[in-house]
């Protein structure tokens, strides 16, 4: 490549404005041949906008894009494809009922007289898969393969189209620790073969491990581009957030009290299959501790939490809260008896998106005497209560209490739920993936709130897929695999690798070892 310009893609002084917002303000990003370049920034920092500009989805007000040193115009995604730029989206764009091979060639099919030439395509895909070490089963249907393999299919899709610039949008969000390691390995292999990679992420560990250089964005501005070898995680997070960030949650050892929630032999039927999604689970959560249920998505955590919170009925077993049996209690009864719930899916369960902020803040207590006068809602009380919560929990929104929640950022939507649930001041808080999809600043805040609640003597049941969060926050860890609890750990005495083995089902403790 001698004599070739050093950069494969250059985005120079890109400015993109939306009414009232400057989403990209004079941003320069230069991607070298064969490098892994990370793009780091909080939610709303402008990463997606910048990538949309590169893909021709948005037209920038100012700035130019160069490919191999030559200025190019990218007016729509087809132009980007023609320039061999490809993207692996965070949420895979695969057709579940198609085979892996069909998914890979979809949209770029070779045909002869209108007939598909699948044999040639198969050979080409096989060659690619061997060359880059991307193991896939070409004939399996996408719905039957693991998330990790689906991601490899996405990567193969890009390679099949002979893309030279590969963009990975938050690729590790859905993977297990083992799969993440594998992905890092694949990414390095790709650059060795001459591909250039843009890696969008807000996970500092991964960036430090795999990227050569990092460009940091904050509030639409270019903060800096640094070599990972010459920086630290603390420095990066400071650049990203704009202030020093507490990387590790600061907390005293737990002072656990009595059992608040006791779960005995609970099984929950699966909605999809003719087996139990959760089988014979036993544990208890004590006052003043954070008990974390770790595990890979889809191992029964969701069903277990639904059974505990009343969204589903367990097929057998008993659940008691503060000594009262709530196995068949209604959701409202559980709530009245002391359970608050930060749900897994904030858009499906946690919020009524078309309601205003204040309407959402009283979703769990609108019926309390304080907020009503007979059958009428006391709007003045609702307003003052909402204003108090907004102040106390620093929920930011365009129009204060009357902002439609749909228009708020993900972090502030989650803060709305956290404020609502914590402020009820109940003995048990069930928090399911409370920081999913949030940026460092918001995560720090939510972790701080949960620890404060623990210190105030609340029992906290946390379900998390993020190992960092599990290790950081919990006082006790239970690992769930295949609908069962396969081990109990003290976070101070277990490594993430060890937890990963339990999460993947490779190891399990004898039940007597931990059963209370």
């Amino acid at each position: 490549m001698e004599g070739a310009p050093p950069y494969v893609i250059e985005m120079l002084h890109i400015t993109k404005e939306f009414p009232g917002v400057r989403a990209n303000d004079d941003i320069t990003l230069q991607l070298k041949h064969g490098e892994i370049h990370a793009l780091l920034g909080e939610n709303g920092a402008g990463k997606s906008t910048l990538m949309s500009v590169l893909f021709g989805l948005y037209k920038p007000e100012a700035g130019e894009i160069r490919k191999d040193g030559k200025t190019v115009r990218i007016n729509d995604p087809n132009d980007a494809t023609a320039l061999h730029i490809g993207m692996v989206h965070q949420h895979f764009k695969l057709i579940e009922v198609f085979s892996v091979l069909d998914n890979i060639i979809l949209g770029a099919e070779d045909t002869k007289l209108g007939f598909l030439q699948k044999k040639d395509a198969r050979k080409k895909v096989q060659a690619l898969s061997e060359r880059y070490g991307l193991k896939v089963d070409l004939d399996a249907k996408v719905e039957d393969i693991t998330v990790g393999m689906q991601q490899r299919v996405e990567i193969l899709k890009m390679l099949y189209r002979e893309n030279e610039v590969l963009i990975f949008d938050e690729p590790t969000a859905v993977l297990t620790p083992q799969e993440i390691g594998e992905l890092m390995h694949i990414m390095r292999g790709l650059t060795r073969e001459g591909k250039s990679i843009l890696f969008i992420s807000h996970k500092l560990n991964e960036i430090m491990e795999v990227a050569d250089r990092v460009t940091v964005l904050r509030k639409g501005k270019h903060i800096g581009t640094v070599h990972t070898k010459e920086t630290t995680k603390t420095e990066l997070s400071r650049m990203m957030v704009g202030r020093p960030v507490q990387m590790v949650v600061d907390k005293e050892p737990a002072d656990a009290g009595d059992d608040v929630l006791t779960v005995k032999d609970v099984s929950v039927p699966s909605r999809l299959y003719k087996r139990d999604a959760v089988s014979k689970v036993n544990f208890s959560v004590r006052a003043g501790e954070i008990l974390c249920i770790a595990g890979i998505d889809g191992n029964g955590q969701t069903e277990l939490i639904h059974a505990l919170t009343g969204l589903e009925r367990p097929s057998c077993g008993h659940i008691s809260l503060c000594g009262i049996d709530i196995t068949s209690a209604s959701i409202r009864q559980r709530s009245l008896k002391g359970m608050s719930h930060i749900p897994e899916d904030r858009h499906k369960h946690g919020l009524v998106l078309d309601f205003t902020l204040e309407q959402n803040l009283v979703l769990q207590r609108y019926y309390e005497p304080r907020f009503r006068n007979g059958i009428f809602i006391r709007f003045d009380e609702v307003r003052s209560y909402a204003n108090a919560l907004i102040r106390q929990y620093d929920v930011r929104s365009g129009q204060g209490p009357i902002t439609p929640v749909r228009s708020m950022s993900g972090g502030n939507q989650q803060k709305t739920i956290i404020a609502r649930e914590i402020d009820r001041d109940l003995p048990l808080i069930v928090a399911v993936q409370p920081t999913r999809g949030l940026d460092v600043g918001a995560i720090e805040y939510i972790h701080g709130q949960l620890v404060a609640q623990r210190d105030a003597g609340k029992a906290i049941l946390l379900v998390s897929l993020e190992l960092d969060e599990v290790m950081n926050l919990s006082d006790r860890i239970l690992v769930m695999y295949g609908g069962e609890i396969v081990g109990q750990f003290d976070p101070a005495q277990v490594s993430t690798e060890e937890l990963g083995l339990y999460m993947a089902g490779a190891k399990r403790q004898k039940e007597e070892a931990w059963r209370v």
Partner: protein
Amino acid sequence: MSGKNERNVLRSILASLISILIGMGMGSLVILIVGLCSKNLTLKSTWEGIRLIALGVFSTGRNAAGELTFGFNPASMGNMLFRATPIILTGLSVGIAFKSGLFNIGAAGQYLAGTCATLFIALSIPSKIVPAWLIWLLAFLGGMAAGALWGAIPGMLKAFLNINEVLACIMSNWIAANVVTWLFDISNLKNIVESTKSGYIYKTTFNGIATPKLGLDKLFPGSQVNGGILIAILLAVLMYILISRTTLGYELKACGANRYAARYAGIKDRRNMVLSMAIAGAMAGAAGSLYYLSGNTEFYWSTYQILPAAGFNGIPVALLASNNPIGIIFTGMFMSTLSISGLQLTNLTAYNEYITDVIISVIVYLSAFSLVIRMWLGGRRKKAAQIGKEDE
């Protein structure tokens, strides 16, 4: 917690007005085309037709010179209010169900159920023994109850068996049509006194029952108007208060906007679904009830092949008003204004009554447009909001 902010309300009103204007424009276009294609119609009469479509309710006929005259026409105005009564109520029926996320296309069946109960009560209880006002009250409440019951059935099917309420409503419409026909067929309420007519049920005035005029006949002499319109407005205000001021309204809206979040918050979503459909049914029942309690309308009992149009007209009325009960009062009146315009068109020009139906249906069709226009009006702002939460 007033729900929508003022800008949204303004935008809704603006969107409805725009779609009404487009509808009127399309109607005028139809008139123009028909006028140009017909030998009987001159350009002048075409222009008259267009004017009547816009201002029919103010038409006072023709003067000595044969020119159209306009002004306050109490009979048209009163008839407009009379005709508005049932469609305001079926509009409320559709609107309330929409608020809780259900599409009540069964207002026609609920209307028939209400009609049937009302007529049986009003004509079967002898007014010689029971005071007429009490019979009237019983007949009205009975009509509402019958409508509520008929509406609750698809509500229950949806809540407990997850059967699509649209399908259940359509079925329940035809079941109502047939059951009502059968009930009247075996009854002794068929009008055999006026032998020129067949297939009609006695007017309620045969038993001395009629909605009091409440002085409206003095205000609008020569029209059919009665106190029913005031009852419809009162019910609309009550529905508005229910939806926007009470905890029940909050629950219904939560169920409508996000059933899962409502359930998560411990709201009984199934019960609310049934309740919402029952309230919707009661409104449609009241529509049928008030229409026939007027005493000057007669029910054609052989309904098994035709569903009452009032049931379906509730849909555009609710859509045009974005399901706001107060807005429904006005859109209901607008719809009945159109039908008065149609009458005037038939009376005063060579256009026949069918052309007016075409025009009304064009406007009805375009009422669905108000949603699109509202989205378009809100489009720019929404896009900006989208940017605010990018990276998600």
